[in-house]
């Protein structure tokens, strides 16, 4: 009986997680995300912290699941430009996540930052 309850809780948790991720992805604005993401690197480039104003990581560098994990944990070290990333609001982060997720390597339209 306990096993069944535990399995059910686990099942519900998994389903809710997927729904959460899906809703989160839908919740952001992909277009705004694209420009917010670019703006981070433009600002970073202008203060001389990076060599190119083009974002260093393209959406197709990761799968959708990998992008979800990165934004769930909010670990943005690999992106560099920590100063700019720390200034982003929750809404801007959601937009960026939506953009990266929508153009991930396993998405219908993988994209590179040009």
């Amino acid at each position, binding site marked *: 009986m306990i096993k069944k309850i535990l399995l059910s809780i686990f099942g519900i948790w998994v389903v809710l997680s997927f729904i959460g991720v899906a809703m989160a992805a839908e919740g952001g604005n992909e*277009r*705004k995300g*694209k*420009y917010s993401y670019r*703006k981070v690197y433009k600002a970073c480039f202008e203060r001389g912290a990076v060599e190119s104003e083009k974002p260093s990581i393209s959406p197709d560098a990761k799968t959708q699941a990998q992008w979800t994990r990165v934004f769930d944990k909010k670990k943005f070290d690999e992106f560099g430009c920590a100063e700019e990333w720390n200034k982003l609001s929750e809404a801007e982060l959601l937009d960026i996540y939506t953009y990266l997720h929508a153009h991930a390597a396993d998405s219908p339209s993988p994209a590179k930052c*040009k």
Partner: protein
Amino acid sequence: MQPRQLIRGALKTLLTAGFFILGILSTGHAAETADTDEAPGRVMARQAIREKEHWNTTDHAMHPALQQNFTSGAEITAACLSCHNEAENQFHRSIHWTWKADDSPEGAEHGKAGLSVNNFCISANRMKDKGCLSCHPGWNGVEDGINCLACHGRKKINFKEAFEDYAYFMETGDEESLQMATDIQKDIHEAVVTIGNPERENCGTCHFYGGGGDGVKHGDLDSAMAKPLKTLDVHMGIDGQNFTCVRCHTTRLHKIAGRVYTAPAASDRKSLIEDDLTTKITCESCHTATPHKTVSKANDHTDRVACQSCHIPYFARVNPTKMSWDWSKAGDRKDGKAYTIKGPLGKETYMSIKGEMVWEKNVKPEYFWYNGSIRSITAKDVIDPILTIAVSQPEGSRDDRNARIYPFKVHHGNQPYDKINKTLLAPLLSGPNGYFTLMDWKKSLTLGMEAIGLPYSGQFDFVKTTYVFPTTHMVAPKENVVSCMECHQREDSRLVNLAGFYMPGRDRVKAVDIIGWLVIMASIVGVSLHGLGRIFTNGKRKEG
């Protein structure tokens, strides 16, 4: 060892030693005079290019016509043409716009918008293949007018995306969106006013990637030429002369010098000394017809051997180039899916949608007599499929006084042809119904031939073909040029395929050989007898 062989060996050793000593002496002499006696061709070329800096009388950023919000490519073009009001007429007549060779033989219709076929990406289907149209300098293929910035823009942005996003953010209308729209418009404006003569990136966007990828088409033009070192190209090297493409590809009425297919790049090989308004498209334009030092034997070659033959020893010296493409192998699937195999040079050697391909680096050119024109067949010409079909081949022969020995990349293909009509076929490759999507030959061949308006019997097979590209870029530094012995030798001469004339070192005439050996032997006997005579007479001379 037979005595005859012994004598022959000894003579050969003596001769080799003699040439070696002569070589050392002449090299020593050359080194001695190198600093003081520069080749006149280099001096002339330096004079031709001494004015390097361009100057302008207009700051486009200040121009009233460009102080506006641009929401489409057509608006940008209209702004350009409001001042440059002849540019559109001129450009519409150029091959960059028409994609048609205006000097085609009657009824031949050469060009991508005509009936031309090749043996790599095969056809642009009279401009109906959308993949090819990405290189047409219009805002949307041929439909929305000229995109002046394709050639003159120095700042690259994705205009299509920028216009779409700008419209979206303006319509959304919230504060954040309007700020983004302002930022996008700032980017567009910056791109519109940051203009000038074409840079390497402008030309290279298409010409480095001809045939559908980096180094697919030309062996001497690939992305390595965007910022080459002098070792790759002495003219364009960023650590040397740093030429842009238009330094040699001079332009008149938007027609750019240098196209070499149906007609030569220049009708006569004049230097700037003879005509100060001549194009700079040939080597002689700047280097003259006697570019080497007065004593150099190389000057005696320039009437029959193109400069490129010696000065471009190998092409594709940084990036690999595609040397063959077998379309008959296309269509294979693994687990029902298209797949790709990469080879040791990091390039695709098999793609389900393209077939089997061979890539090579540091390729030795093949040499042909060439008068500057290339003869090509079109999708209308009848072929004999038993033979290997020369889709294109250089024109000229030894008897043609305008022809010289010239280096080429020869690309080998195996491509579809019509078994009944005996013509090469032009499949539609890109788009939802193209071969790249459906991998269906029947459909792509039917659609492709419909697009170019030629009959297709419905029956096809594959035929072996060749296609030539003249090699003229990637000019090596003088210390890396082809040495005399690479051509003037019996074994593995670079010119082994060129017959019908006598070339010292490569060829042998038995009578001349016998006479030569007799002279050498007579000289040795004479010297020996003279020496012996001196020994036996104790070196005494008759006193007078």
